[in-house]
C-alpha cells in the first residue's frame, strides 16, 4: 500500500521525460517536504513519546517509593506503640491478683510505674465480669461506672484484647482505650482497662518528617480521623476522601482531593487493629522535577521538529532549484541544437536548389541573349522594338532569379570571417547612414543613442553592416510613416549590446517563433524570407546572440550582443 502511495506521489521525481511546469514543481516541493518531515519527525515523535512515558513512570516510581517507605515505617511505629501498651496492660492483668488490683493504693502504684515506663498512659481501671468499674486510678471520678452495655466490653470478653478507636468519651479529650481480659483460677474473668493519650500518635506522625504541604493522618476503617491534620480537619472529623480499598501493604494511589488538586495518597491498613494510616502529598509538589524535565523534553522536541522542518524545506528548495536549472539548461540546449540543425539542413537544401537552378538559368540567359543578338543584327526584323523589350524583361527576370539563388547560397555559405578590431558605434553610424534618406522621406525618426564607453570589439565590419542593414530595413518596413526607431548601444566588460526598438506593427507569437527560419516571410511577394536567417547565421558566426521581443501593434525590439572576442567556432 505504501509503495503504491509513494510511487503515485513521487512519479514526478523519477520520470524525466515529462515537461516539468512550475505547478508540478510546487506539488513536488510539497510532497518532498512532507515526506522528509514525516520520515524525520515520526521517529522523533515516537522517541519523545516513549521517553515521556518511560520517564514519567520511572520518576513517579522514584517519587512514590519514599512515600511508601515512610508510611510503612510509621505504621510499624504505631503497631509497636500499640503492641507495647497492650502487652503492658496484659502483663498487669496477669501479674497481679484481682485483690491487688482492686486495692486503690496498689493500682495507684501500678499506674505510676506504667506512666514512668511507658509514656502515654492516662488512667487505669479494673472492671469485673458484670461491667462495673471496681477500681480506678486517674484524673477523673469514674468509679462505679457500668460498661456492661457497651460494645467494647462484650468484644473484650470474647476476644480477650481490645483497642478502641479514638474517642472523647466521658473524659472529653481524644483518647484510646486498651482493655485486656484475664480469667482467674476460679474461672471468673475480669478486665483491666487503661486509657492512652493520643498525643503519642501525633508524635509518631511528626516523626515521619513530612515536607510542608504534605499531610499524614491516622484513620479508623470508618473514615473517622484519629489524629489531627493540617488539611483534613481535627480528631473525629470525617475524612473528606473516600476510604481506599483495604490492604495491609503500603500502597500509593493517585487521585484528586476535595478541591480537585492532584495528590498521591499513600496508605496502609493495620492488621491488628481498626486503624488506617494515610499520607497525602500534592502531586504538583512531588512532580516539580518531572515538570522541568517535561518542559525540557517538549522544548527539545519542538526545536527538533522546527530544525527538521527548516532543514527539509531548505534541502527541498535546493534540490528543486538544481532540478529546475538542469531541466531548463537541457531544454535550452535541445532547442538550440534543434534550431541549429533545422537551419543547417534547410541551408544545405537551399544551396542545392540554388546550384541546380543556376544551370538552367544560364541556359535561359544565353538563349535569350542569342535571341537579342540575332534580332539586333537584322535591321528589318518586324516589331523589333517590342521583341527587344520582351527579351530585356526576360533577362531582367533571369538576373532577379540569379540574385535570389546568390542570396540562398549566401545563407548557406561558410564565410571566412575577416576579423578586425572595430567600434560598433561607427558601424552603426555608417549603416544607418544608408537609410537616413528613406527615413527622412517617410518622416521616420531614426535616433541613435550610442554608449561612448562601449569597448571596441573584434568582429567583421562587412558582416556587421549586413546584420544591421537587415534589422534596420525590417524596422523601416514595420513602422508606419512618422514612426520611430531607436537604436542604442550598451557596453560592458563582456562586450557590446545593441538594441533596435521600433514602434511598428509588431508580430504575433506564432510569427515570432519562426522569424529566424529561412523562407519565412510576412512580406509576401517582396521578400525572400532569408534576411533574418542570414542575420542569425552571421551573428552566431561572430559569437554573438540575437533575441527578439515583440507585441502586436506596440512594436518590436531586437537585441544583439557581441562579445569582445568571438569565440572560436568551427
Amino acid at each position, binding site marked *: 500500500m505504501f509503495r503504491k502511495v509513494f510511487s503515485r506521489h513521487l512519479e514526478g521525481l523519477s520520470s524525466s521525460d515529462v515537461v516539468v511546469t512550475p505547478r508540478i514543481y510546487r506539488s513536488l516541493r510539497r510532497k518532498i517536504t512532507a515526506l522528509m518531515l514525516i520520515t524525520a519527525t515520526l521517529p522523533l515523535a515516537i522517541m519523545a513519546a516513549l521517553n515521556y512515558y518511560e520517564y514519567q513512570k520511572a520518576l513517579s516510581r522514584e517519587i512514590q517509593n519514599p512515600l511508601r517507605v515512610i508510611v510503612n515505617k510509621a505504621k510499624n511505629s504505631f503497631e509497636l506503640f500499640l503492641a507495647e501498651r497492650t502487652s503492658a496492660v496484659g502483663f498487669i492483668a496477669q501479674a497481679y491478683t484481682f485483690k491487688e488490683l482492686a486495692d486503690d493504693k496498689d493500682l495507684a502504684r501500678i499506674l505510676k510505674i506504667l506512666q514512668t515506663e511507658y509514656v502515654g498512659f492516662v488512667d487505669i481501671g479494673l472492671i469485673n465480669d458484670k461491667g462495673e468499674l471496681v477500681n480506678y486510678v486517674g484524673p477523673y471520678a469514674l468509679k462505679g461506672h457500668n460498661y456492661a452495655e457497651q460494645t467494647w466490653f462484650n468484644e473484650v470478653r470474647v476476644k480477650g484484647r481490645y483497642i478502641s478507636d479514638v474517642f472523647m468519651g466521658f473524659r472529653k479529650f481524644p483518647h484510646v482505650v486498651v482493655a485486656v481480659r484475664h480469667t482467674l483460677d476460679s474461672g471468673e474473668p475480669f478486665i483491666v482497662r487503661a486509657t492512652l493519650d493520643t498525643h503519642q500518635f501525633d508524635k509518631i506522625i511528626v516523626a515521619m518528617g513530612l515536607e510542608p504541604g504534605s499531610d499524614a493522618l491516622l484513620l479508623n476503617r470508618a473514615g473517622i480521623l484519629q489524629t489531627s491534620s493540617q488539611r483534613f480537619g481535627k480528631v473525629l472529623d470525617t475524612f473528606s476522601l473516600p476510604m481506599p480499598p483495604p490492604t495491609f501493604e503500603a500502597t500509593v494511589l493517585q487521585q484528586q482531593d476535595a478541591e480537585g488538586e492532584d495528590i498521591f495518597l499513600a496508605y496502609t491498613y493495620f492488621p491488628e487493629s481498626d486503624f488506617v494510616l494515610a499520607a497525602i502529598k500534592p502531586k504538583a509538589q512531588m512532580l516539580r522535577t518531572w515538570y522541568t524535565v517535561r518542559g525540557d523534553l517538549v522544548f527539545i522536541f519542538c526545536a527538533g521538529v522546527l530544525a527538521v522542518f527548516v532543514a527539509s524545506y531548505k534541502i527541498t528548495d535546493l534540490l528543486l532549484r538544481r532540478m529546475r536549472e538542469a531541466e531548463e539548461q537541457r531544454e535550452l540546449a535541445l532547442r538550440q541544437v534543434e534550431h541549429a540543425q533545422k537551419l543547417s539542413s534547410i541551408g544545405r537544401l537551399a*544551396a542545392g536548389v540554388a*546550384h*541546380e*537552378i*543556376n*544551370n538552367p*538559368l*544560364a*541556359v*535561359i*540567359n*544565353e*538563349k535569350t*541573349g*542569342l535571341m537579342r*543578338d540575332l534580332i539586333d*543584327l537584322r535591321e528589318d526584323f518586324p516589331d523589333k522594338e517590342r521583341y527587344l523589350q520582351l527579351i530585356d524583361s526576360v533577362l531582367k527576370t*533571369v538576373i532577379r532569379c*540569379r540574385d535570389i539563388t*546568390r542570396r540562398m*547560397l549566401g545563407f*548557406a*555559405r*561558410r*564565410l*571566412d570571417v575577416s576579423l578586425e578590431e572595430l567600434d560598433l558605434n561607427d558601424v552603426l553610424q555608417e549603416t544607418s547612414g544608408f537609410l537616413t534618406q528613406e527615413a527622412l522621406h517617410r518622416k521616420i525618426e531614426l535616433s541613435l543613442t550610442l554608449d561612448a564607453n562601449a569597448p571596441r570589439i573584434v568582429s567583421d565590419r562587412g558582416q556587421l553592416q549586413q546584420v544591421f542593414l537587415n534589422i534596420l530595413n525590417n524596422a523601416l518596413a514595420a513602422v508606419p510613416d512618422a514612426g520611430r526607431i531607436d537604436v542604442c548601444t550598451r557596453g560592458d566588460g563582456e562586450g557590446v549590446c545593441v538594441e533596435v526598438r521600433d514602434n511598428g506593427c509588431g508580430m504575433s507569437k506564432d510569427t515570432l517563433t519562426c522569424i529566424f527560419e529561412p523562407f519565412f516571410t510576412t512580406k509576401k511577394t517582396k521578400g525572400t524570407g532569408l534576411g533574418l536567417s542570414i542575420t542569425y547565421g552571421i551573428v552566431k558566426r561572430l559569437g554573438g546572440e540575437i533575441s527578439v521581443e515583440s507585441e502586436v501593434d506596440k512594436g518590436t525590439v531586437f537585441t544583439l550582443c557581441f562579445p569582445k572576442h568571438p569565440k572560436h567556432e568551427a
Partner: protein
Amino acid sequence: MKKIKLLLVDDEENFVNTLAERLKMRDVPSKVVYSGEEALEAVKSEVPDVVVLDLRMPGIDGMEVLRKVRQTNPDVRIVILTGHGNEVIEEEAKKLGAFHYHKKPVEIDELLGTVKKAYREKLEDAMVAATFAQAGAFDEAHEILDEEK
C-alpha cells in the same frame, strides 16, 4: 588583335553551344568540348590561350582539369564559369591558378571582358619573356613564364 584561341568546356551542350555562337557573333570563335577528358585531349592537341571551364561535370571534373592543365601548360589562362560552388570552392580554384571565377548565369559581355583580359595578360607575359629572351636573359624569361607555376 590576333584571334584568341578559346576553348569552352561544359557538359551542358545547350548552354555551351549557344555561348559559343554568341561569342562568335562577337568575333571570338571558340572550340567547344563537353567533358573533362575531351578538354585535356584538346589542350594536348592544340594549346589554347584561354579556357572557359565548368566545374561540375561527369567523369573528370573541372577542378581536376584545372589542376592538370596548370601543370602541363602553365601559360594557359583558365576562367571558371559554374553554377555550383561556393566561396570555399572559389578559393580553391583561385589557389590552383584560375584566372577568374564566374558564377552562372553571367552577362556575355562580362565574360568576354574577362576572357580578353586573360588573353591580354598572357600576351604581356609572353612579350616580356620574349624581350628578356632577346636580351639573352633566358633565366628571367623562364621565371616570368613559370611564375604562376
